[in-house]
């Protein structure tokens, strides 16, 4: 099939970008979206044009590196699917496809479709960990954890940190990401120790990094390729309530 692409081209962080039209010819429906872009890029390179810069790594839907807004939806039209796992059979011959980078103040564009997501790393560094003494490997089942709690924690752990939630959010908020990380740890005994401090530090860092506040549009859940749910945001809010005594310093 043949497609018309409008792709965001931007030389660097400080330069203005624009949508540029490309033709994708002879695209097989079995190609992934990124393979389609590879073919377009090979054509561009052959004619000594600059290829489209985009992020990718595992190409099997687990690393969270690929990041494109396709026709207005982060990761494209198929639910719970990353761009690398999106196949061209979801499109029709003659379709026009708009491809844009994640847009949020906290995620500046580096080049074309590539954005700088280190703001997520800063949120993790501010509290998304448990402090443990290293040493011997603990015995399996030394700490009993109820099955329900383990399940919730593992569901939250599915977050691959791709940033689609931020890209989809009308407020450019990182609440779904932050909530997934907080729930992941707060459900487990090892994570409960630092839970109060963590929720305060991580939500504060979220604001410091320039992300917005959540106002419950729920666009994030719809965009998430891993099905992370907004119920984790409610969990974050409960963790915050537990952490904050409004008459004293929070998180102490």
């Amino acid at each position, binding site marked *: 099939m043949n497609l018309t692409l409008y792709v965001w081209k931007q030389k660097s962080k400080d330069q203005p970008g624009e949508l540029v039209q490309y033709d994708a010819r002879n695209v097989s429906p079995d190609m992934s979206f990124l393979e389609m872009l590879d073919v377009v890029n090979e054509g561009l390179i052959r004619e000594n044009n600059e290829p489209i810069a985009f992020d990718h790594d595992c190409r099997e839907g687990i690393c969270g590196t690929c990041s494109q*807004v396709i026709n207005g939806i982060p990761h494209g039209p198929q639910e719970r699917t990353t761009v690398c796992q999106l196949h061209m059979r979801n499109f029709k011959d003659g379709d026009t496809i708009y491809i*844009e980078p994640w847009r949020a103040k906290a995620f500046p564009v580096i080049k074309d479709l590539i954005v700088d997501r280190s703001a997520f790393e800063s949120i993790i560094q501010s509290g998304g960990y448990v402090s443990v003494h290293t040493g011997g490997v603990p015995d399996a089942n030394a700490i009993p954890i109820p099955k329900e709690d383990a399940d919730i924690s593992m569901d939250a752990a599915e977050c691959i940190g791709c940033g689609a939630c931020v890209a989809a959010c009308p407020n450019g908020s990182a609440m779904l990401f932050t909530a997934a990380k907080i729930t992941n740890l707060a459900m487990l005994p090892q994570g409960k120790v630092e839970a109060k401090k963590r929720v305060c530090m991580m939500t504060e860092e979220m604001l410091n990094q320039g992300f917005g506040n*959540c*106002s419950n549009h729920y666009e994030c859940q719809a965009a998430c390729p891993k099905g992370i749910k907004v*119920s984790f945001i409610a969990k974050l*809010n409960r963790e915050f309530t537990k952490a904050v005594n409004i008459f004293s310093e929070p998180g102490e």
Partner: protein
Amino acid sequence: MQSFINSSVGRKMLVAVTGQFMILFIFVHVLGNSTVFFGGLNAYAAKLHSLPLLVWITRIIMSTVITVHVFFSIQLTLENWKSNPGSYAVSKYQRSTFASRNMIWTGALIGTFLLFHLLHFTFQVINPSFAASANMDALGRPDVTFMVISSFQHFISSIIYIAAMIALALHLFHGIQSSFQTLGINNERSMPFITKSGSVASVILFLGYIAIPVIILLGLLKGQ
């Protein structure tokens, strides 16, 4: 470390709690208003004003609640606008609603209406000739019924009230379920029920409030 009123979640919770306070108030208010249908509005108003302590405590609480709600909701919204350059060439909303994306505008309409409403029926300076404070009923009570009916017989007054109630209904359509999520007093099982009840409550409030101007405009409720 930041304090509660600088935090993202803390400020949202203040907006949510004050929002819920206002919902409580408007439920009581709509019940009070409906006494007009049974000819009891003057008696209701007289009873309320014989309890100045209750009236003044409510006024102080409501002014505080509204100030906190408006201050933090505007502050949060301005931050959210700054965080989103909002420049997708194509954007497709999947879960958000017209109501959720326009909270600041429906809020601004409600706020403006609130000022009008206070000037109209509390300070009674919009139509001074209808003022309850200037017209007594047969029992010597301020004639609130006369004021309300005369006002709503004017098409413009009624339309202002009905339009404001559309804004209120939209605000609450998103706001009620949102406040439960913000305060974390929900879970996956209760959330569909909370969302549905929130929508039903906003429709009930809407119908309850517009009933008065609509019925008066239709000529079904007349003064003496």
